[in-house]
């Protein structure tokens, strides 16, 4: 799998309490899987996000990112649209787990006030460290649990379960 523990991308700031209806609206829920990416953040303050995001871009949000529904379409759409990482001050439980399970890294870090939209940042997932490229400033994030790193390294939960069940 394409496990990359060092990421580099442009920042999209999103604010606090971004719920799953904003990340992936209910009306899109029946869409076929190859269209999910077109609806990424369609219900948010950046409804045209899907058309503007570039591969590797990084979402930087406030508290409780991904609150609301259990729809896995939300992290899947973000990942498919090209988002490489979501950083938030805190995450809702199900979104956080869903993201990790599908291999979209998430990092807990209070970063929003310290970066600007479009700024480039570098992130080391294992060291849990964010570097703001322009200033060279380094900011600590919360270390990811060992089993989370394992899941991400395996490329998601399905691959991990296959390993566990010894299906090759």
């Amino acid at each position, binding site marked *: 799998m394409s496990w990359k523990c060092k990421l580099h991308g442009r920042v999209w700031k999103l604010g606090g*309490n971004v*719920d799953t*209806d*904003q990340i992936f*609206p*209910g*009306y899109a*829920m*029946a*869409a*076929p*899987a190859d269209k999910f990416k077109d609806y990424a953040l369609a*219900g948010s303050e950046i*409804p045209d996000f899907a058309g503007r995001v570039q591969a590797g871009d990084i979402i930087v949000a406030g*508290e*409780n990112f991904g*609150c*609301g*529904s*259990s*729809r*896995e*379409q939300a992290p*899947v759409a973000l990942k498919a649209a090209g988002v490489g990482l979501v950083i938030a001050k*805190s*995450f*809702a*439980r*199900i979104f956080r*787990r*869903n993201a990790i*399970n*599908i291999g979209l890294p998430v990092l807990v870090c209070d970063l929003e006030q310290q970066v600007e939209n479009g700024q480039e940042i570098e992130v080391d997932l294992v060291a849990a460290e964010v570097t703001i490229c322009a200033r060279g400033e380094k900011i600590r994030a919360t270390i990811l649990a060992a*089993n989370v790193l394992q899941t991400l390294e395996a490329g*998601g*939960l*399905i691959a991990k*379960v*296959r390993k*566990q*069940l010894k*299906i090759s």
Partner: protein
Amino acid sequence: MNQIEGYLAMAAGKDEVHNGDDITVKVDLAIAHDITGPMAVEQFKKIGVGQVFDMKKVVFVLDHIIPAATVEAKVLHNVLREFSKRYGVKLYDKGEGVIHQVIAEKHRLKRGSILIGADSHTCTAGAYGALAIPVGATELAATMATGTLDLEVPEICEIRIDGKLKPGVYAKDVILHLIGHFGTAGFTDQGVIYTGSLMDQLTMDDKMTISNMGIEMGTMISYFADPDQSVGRVKEVYTFKTEDIPASVACPPNPGNVVRAADLSSTKISQVVIGSCTNGRLSDMLVAAEVLKGRKVAEGVTLLIIPASVDIAQQMEDQGLNRIFREAGGVITSPGCGPCFGAHMGLLAAGDVAVSTTNRNFPGRMGHRDGKVYLASPRLAAESAIAGTIVSPGQVVPLGGLADELEV
């Protein structure tokens, strides 16, 4: 250990578990619906096992977009039909109702059982003492293969509520009040145990309304204590008195934005929704019918009545509630989720304002991002439908009638 930890330990085959422990629990029932199920099925197939861990312990319900509103939705139904046929798992595909209600009616688990569901309101089953944990489609797929779930034992808090509810105040107001108090992330990654003398007066319907919205405070588990066991050690006990709980409304843009109903009058509305896994049960319909009997829905207001299950729909018919709703000017839809999550059957346009007994009011939840949703009890919703504005219970129809007695 407290009650939740005790049952988690049992499910993990351990003598004791404590907050922070990584454990693997045996799952008693794994559920999904027409939106999350197809994705779980796809992920399950990627695992490559030939069968689910136990055919009797996997259940799918078509409830979110039934009847199919689009061709795509029908494709999702067909995915689950095919899968259930091939793998022998139970599928409710006749519009039996909202998943959480169907599970409560047909698959009610014993206290302490582990239910996982690819739907955030799986927590509803905490009303009858199940440890009900919402998951995503991929996690459900993994459980469908292994029969287990990996989790970290959460911190557990107790919410203790004593007293009797004031007239015009319902289970919905209790949970709205709590969400307003603790905020939408108040219990992220935590479990909550409900205790206190109020619990003895609540019906199962009431308890389901309260546990249903636990996820709106971020809870991992919402659980009603077994009154015959001691609660055990918890991280924190929060106490509330019912006399401090008013009729409440959650205003846009999220369920934590809660105010007293009395502070909201003169907000004009264009739609009222009575239904959902939060408040679509018979007791809710009885309260609404009592209010609407012999009265008319205000001009410019669409009233939608959505029974949470086909059993409830049948009882509504048997008890003559449907006639009351129709004569009042309401639209009764087939059982299911209806417009609750914004896919079909009653969407809002920009500028519309709805009072809804559902559980979420995020921007766009019921249609256009600039349509507004206020969350409230069936009583408040029904009275508001008549008034055409958001009112407090008792303002349009005096309190103390049959509706109040029925609720107790």
